[in-house]
């Protein structure tokens, strides 16, 4: 039930679907409240160093993650917030020339919680392919390099 499903659609969209065991109101709060966002917008792929701002229409969140010793920044700008069902925002990445993704997030009430339906629209087809295909292969290069080290040690 909690598996992330990703699909490529059209030239530059990626559609992500994921279910959560909580009603939409609760999911909405967790994904828009800055203090709660600090608790989960972090992972082994990048520890959240700081998060400031507010999810209001026209407002922004500024994220900084630690990416193996260097800062990775992202600015989220909110264009639409219709609690508890719809968010439209843009994510821009200063380290990547402010390349901007448009994201539409819908929260749909289902029997045992919430289905999140997210459409990520990349700046262009090349940006999507770079992110998915190059990211995937580079991720694997890193994995194989670690495996080599492990086997050598």
């Amino acid at each position, binding site marked *: 039930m*909690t598996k*992330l*499903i*990703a*699909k*490529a659609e059209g030239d530059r969209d*990626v559609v*992500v679907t*994921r279910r*959560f*065991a*909580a*009603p939409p*109101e*609760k*999911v909405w*709060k*967790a*994904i828009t409240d800055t203090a*709660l966002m600090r*608790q*989960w*917008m*972090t*992972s*082994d*792929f*990048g520890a959240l160093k700081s998060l400031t701002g507010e999810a209001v229409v026209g407002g922004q969140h500024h994220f900084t993650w630690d990416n193996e010793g260097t800062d990775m920044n992202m600015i989220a700008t909110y264009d639409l917030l219709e609690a508890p069902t719809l968010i439209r925002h843009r994510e821009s990445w200063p380290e990547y020339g402010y390349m901007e993704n448009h994201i539409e997030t819908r929260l749909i009430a289902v029997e045992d919680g919430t289905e999140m339906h997210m459409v990520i629209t990349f700046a262009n087809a*090349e940006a*999507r*392919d*770079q*992110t*998915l*295909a*190059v*990211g*995937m*292969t*580079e*991720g*694997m*290069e890193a*994995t*194989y390099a670690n495996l080599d080290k492990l086997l050598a040690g």
Partner: protein
Amino acid sequence: MDTLDTRLAALADPTRRALIQRLAQGEATVAELCQPFGISQPAISRHLKVLEQAGLIETRIEGTARPRRLRHQAIAETAAWFGPFLATLDARFRALDQVLAAMPDLPTERKDP
């Protein structure tokens, strides 16, 4: 056959990963793919065949040309397992599961008045 196992086996080779990275910049013919790799056309063709059988790429037919291109659907599905972009999203959503479990019920959720 284009299961996840087949795709991973196809990607368990540095030349084939490099070919995927090259095709992420746009479709290319076998001749175009040979240039940067400095290996023979038959060798490149063999690698492309493995990637195509795994469903990661496809061949477009244009007159006598046979440019190869990425199959976006398969790339997205495979990246959901191994790409940092979707893997990061997945890791965050697992953390979000924990946050949701720890949150007190909202007033709208209370069953009794």
